[in-house]
């Protein structure tokens, strides 16, 4: 356990070096979120009855999305790991007496986490200073906040577990770019990264909500905004845990398989 904690703090410190990039990122994300909210605001005004989410719910959804983007963005892969596979440096990793799956898991976790750590606070603070329908609301009932935190962490772990599958598949196929782009654009759409899932037509949404992608950012953000409430919260978090276990198991098994057939690339 100590080894993994070391890996975590190592990546974290490494990431915290790039502070200027973070400020630029925060500014970009702030305006991106604002435009996103203005767009849905226009939709809402055009026909309030057709909108599945209220203006307040939309505002907190999009601000949380920008604030925690680096935790959930599906297209963000750890370049270190990909290079390791492509260059053959993976051989060094294999020599170490640690489990490769766990190390990579911790590595991608800390990579995402460190980015989010610097970003989420300024974005949410700035967003809460905006006028009424656009502003981010801090004041949610404590119980809702607790469920949000649990769901946020679970969703984050689901994302990391899913990207682990992509790394393992990269090891198996070695020609990953096409597969990756296809998988990633699909994932982004199905996780609610492009439009919030409640905006999908009902007959499609009914199925999409059961997929592992819906257990990523969709669940925590909708719990926070109160769009998922009551007993729905428990089943939503339950579903997140179900997918987390499945993805971890599949990932570990595939990793074993990949390592058995591993071909180290070049020298």
């Amino acid at each position, binding site marked *: 356990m100590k080894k993994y904690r070391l890996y975590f703090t190592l990546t974290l410190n490494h990431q915290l070096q790039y502070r*200027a*990039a973070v400020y*630029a*990122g925060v*500014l*970009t994300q702030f*305006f*991106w979120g604002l*435009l996103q909210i*203005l*767009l849905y605001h*226009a*939709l809402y*005004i*055009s*026909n309030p009855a*057709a*909108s*599945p989410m209220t203006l307040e719910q939309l505002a907190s959804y999009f601000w949380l999305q920008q604030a925690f983007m680096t935790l959930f963005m599906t297209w963000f892969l750890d370049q270190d790991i990909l290079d390791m596979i492509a260059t053959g440096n993976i051989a060094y990793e294999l020599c170490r007496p640690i489990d490769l799956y766990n190390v990579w898991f911790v590595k991608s976790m800390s990579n995402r986490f460190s980015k989010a750590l610097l970003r989420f606070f300024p974005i949410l603070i700035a967003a809460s200073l905006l006028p009424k329908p656009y502003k981010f609301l801090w004041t949610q009932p404590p119980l809702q906040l607790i469920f949000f935190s649990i769901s946020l962490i679970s969703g984050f772990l689901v994302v990391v577990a899913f990207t682990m599958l992509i790394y393992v598949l990269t090891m198996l196929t070695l*020609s990953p*770019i*096409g*597969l990756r*782009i*296809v998988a990633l*654009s*699909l994932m*982004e*759409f199905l996780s609610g990264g*492009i*439009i919030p899932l409640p*905006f*999908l*037509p009902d007959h*499609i949404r009914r199925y999409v909500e059961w997929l592992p992608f819906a257990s990523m950012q969709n669940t925590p953000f909708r719990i926070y905004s109160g769009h998922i409430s009551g007993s729905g919260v428990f089943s939503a978090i339950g579903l997140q845990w179900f997918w987390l276990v499945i993805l971890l198991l599949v990932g570990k098994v595939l990793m074993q398989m990949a390592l058995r057939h591993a071909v180290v690339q070049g020298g």
Partner: protein
Amino acid sequence: MKLYLKMMALHFSAAMSYKSSFLLMVLGQFLISFASFLAVHFIFMRFDDVSGFTYTDVLLCFSAVLMAYSISECFASGFKYFPSTLSTGAFDRMLLRPAEPLFWVFASKMEFSSVGRLFQALLIMGYAVVGAAVEWSFFKVTVYVLMILGGVCYFIGCYIVYAALCFYTTEGLEFINIFTDGGREFGKYPISIYGEGALKFFTFILPLACSQYYPLMYLLGRVKSPLMGLTPLVTICFLAPCVIFWQASLKHYHSTGS
């Protein structure tokens, strides 16, 4: 120009030497922009209109912007990757060559995989041009083409500014993304729906709305003055200050030394 065509042929054959990888990239680009289209489609299954614009109105706007973006991405990606050109010192080599450095940056990279996006834009355009409530005439077709051209100039202008800013910072400024990628994503819808402030900004500071909202209003017959149809010319002129800014910034250049 001849030299540019030659560089283009070189880039093309380079891209073609990894055919399957290239095709997958094209497919990927297509899928990414398809997801973006699906989002608009699903939104309009729920809402009949946004601030008075119907599905086909928005698609008309969307196709012009997407087309403009994919064309500029194909030809101006040398600017997009300019930070790495600077930090590796490849720019020093460009300065030594005859002809303008601006030309060499243009020619340094071409991203042919944007065809995937272009193809998507063509499909949407086909649907929108037939479906939209526009009485097409020769002048209106010209206006639509101008919208695309104006869009291309807007995006290229933004890329040039992005690259020029690198002379001061060496690193890329992520903030410009909001105008390039953001211009593509949010420019799907006529800028006016984001409110008065956004419209003013994208008219007087960065003239994206001039190749998007105003000519669209003319195409749809909401404004009668043909002058409105010619507003994309403003966006085309926008390229001039961008190039001037580039030239001025070039004087600031210090090699990274590697």
